[in-house]
C-alpha cells in the first residue's frame, strides 16, 4: 500500500534516492526506474538531502515515496499541500493514470476543487463521523445552480414556492433569484416561463458551495 501522511516526515540526512532505496528494500516491489520516472515528472532532485528541500519539494519526495510501488491502493492525506500549480497538475495526471490502470486511491483533502477534479466517489467527514458517501456525478446532479430571472412585471414569491429543493429564494421587484439543485431545474423553468422573461441566467455553483449547503457549517472535510 502506498501511504502519504498529512504531515510527511523524512529522514533529514538521507537524500531522495536514499529514501527510495531504504523504503524500497522494505517493500520489495520498487524499481529504480519507477522512482526516476515519478521524480522526473514532478521535477524533483533526488540527490539532495531532504533537510535542504523546500516544503514543496519535500511534499514531492513524500509523494514519490508513496507512489513508487505502483499497483496497490494509495492512501493520500492532503497530497497537494505546498505544491505549485504545475506540480499539482502533474500529480493529478499521475493519479489518473493510476486509476485508469485499475488502481484505487483514497484521497483526503480540504481543497474541494481538487476533489472535484480527481474524485469518483466522495465521502464527507464531519467531526470524525462519515456523514455521506456519494458518487461525484450523483453529487453533481444535486449540485446547485444559481438562477436569476428578470421579468417584465412584478412577480409574487408564491409563484415559485412550490418548487422542491429551492434554496435562498428571494424576489425583489421584477427579479427572482434562487439556488436550485439540478433536479429542480425543469419545474423551475416551467414556472418561470409562465411569466414574461426579460433576462435569464443560470450558473452552476462550485462543488464547495453544494457541500456547504448540504452538509452544513464546518463539515467540509472531504475524502
Amino acid at each position, binding site marked *: 500500500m502506498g*501511504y502519504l501522511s*498529512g504531515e510527511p*516526515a523524512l529522514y533529514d540526512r538521507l537524500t531522495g534516492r536514499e529514501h527510495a532505496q531504504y*523504503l524500497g*528494500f522494505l*517493500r520489495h516491489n520498487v524499481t529504480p526506474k519507477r522512482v526516476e520516472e515519478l521524480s522526473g515528472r514532478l521535477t524533483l532532485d533526488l540527490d539532495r538531502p531532504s533537510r535542504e528541500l523546500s516544503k514543496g519539494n519535500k511534499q514531492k519526495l513524500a509523494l514519490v515515496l508513496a507512489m513508487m510501488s505502483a499497483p496497490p491502493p494509495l492512501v493520500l492525506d492532503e497530497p497537494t499541500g505546498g505544491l505549485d500549480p504545475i506540480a499539482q497538475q502533474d500529480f493529478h495526471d499521475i493519479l489518473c493514470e493510476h486509476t485508469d490502470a485499475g488502481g484505487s486511491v483514497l484521497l483526503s483533502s480540504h481543497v474541494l476543487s481538487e476533489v472535484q477534479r480527481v474524485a469518483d466517489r466522495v465521502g464527507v467527514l464531519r467531526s470524525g463521523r462519515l456523514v455521506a458517501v456519494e458518487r461525484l456525478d450523483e453529487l453533481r446532479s444535486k449540485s446547485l445552480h444559481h438562477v436569476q430571472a428578470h421579468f417584465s412585471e412584478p412577480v409574487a414569491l408564491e409563484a415559485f414556492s412550490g418548487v422542491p429543493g429551492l434554496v435562498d429564494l428571494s424576489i425583489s421587484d421584477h427579479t427572482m433569484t434562487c439556488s436550485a439543485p439540478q433536479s429542480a431545474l425543469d419545474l423551475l423553468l416551467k414556472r418561470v416561463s409562465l411569466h414574461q422573461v426579460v433576462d435569464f441566467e443560470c450558473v452552476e455553483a462550485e462543488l464547495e458551495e453544494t457541500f456547504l449547503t448540504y452538509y452544513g457549517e464546518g463539515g467540509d472535510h472531504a475524502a
Partner: protein
Amino acid sequence: MLRSVLLKTLRDQRRSLLAYAISIGALVMLYGSFWPSIKDQPSMSDFMNQMPEAMRSMFAMSGADLSTPAGYAKVELMSFIGPILVILYAVSAGNAAVAGEEDRHTMDLLLANPISRTRLVLDKLGAMIIGILLITAVAGASLLLSGPVFGLSIAAGKAAAAMVHLGLLGLVFGALALAIGATTGRTGASRGVPALVAVLAYMVNGLASMVSWLEPLQKLSPFYQYGGHDRLRNGISGPAVMVSVLTVAGLVLIAIWGFRRRDVLA
C-alpha cells in the same frame, strides 16, 4: 547500508559509534600509559586504603589492589568510566530506536511499509548489540595492547570476560531505554529513567556492604552482575551472564508488547 532497518540504524549511528570507539580506546590507552609510573608507587595503594570505606566501595569497588595490572585496570577503567561510556551509548541507541524515531515523526514513514513492529524492535536491538560489541571490542583490544606497550598485562581470557560483562551491563540499560521508549513513545522518559535507574543501581551496589537494608537489594543491581565477582581476576560468571541475558530478554519482550499495543504518535 540501507538494505534493512538494522543496517540503516547502524548507518545512522556511524559517526557517534566511531566517536565512542575512539574515545574508549584512547581512554584505555591513556590510563595504560600511566601504569608504568603508578605500579611501583605503594603510596597510591595506601591512598586508596585511606579513603573512607564508602567512597572506596563506590568509586573503586572494594578490594581492588592498585599494585596489580588487573586491580589498576579495574579501578581506573572498569569501575566507572568504562560503564559510563557503554551505558551512555546503549541508552542513546535504545532511546533513538523507537521513541527517537517517533519524536522525529519518521516512524510514520517507516511503519507504512510491510514491516512488523516486532521485527522493527528486533532490528533496532540488533543494531544496538552490534554497536556495543564494537565499543567493547575496541576497549578490550586496547586493554590487551596495553600489555606489551605499557606492561599492563592482563590475560586475554580475563579481559574478554570483563568486556562481555561490560557489554551486558550496557545492554541491560539500553534494553530498558528501548522498552520505555517503545511502550510510551516518549524520549524524555526513555533517556531519563534508565539514567536514574543506573545511578540508583550503582549506589545500591556500592553501598550495600555498609548499609544493611540495601544488602538484599544488591543482587538486583545490574552493577552487581557486572562487577560483583571481579571479572578481570576471576573471569566470566555463568549465573551473572544468565541474569543479565534474562533481564534483557524480559525488557525486549516488554518493548515488543508495549510497541504493538499502542497508537504511534504520527
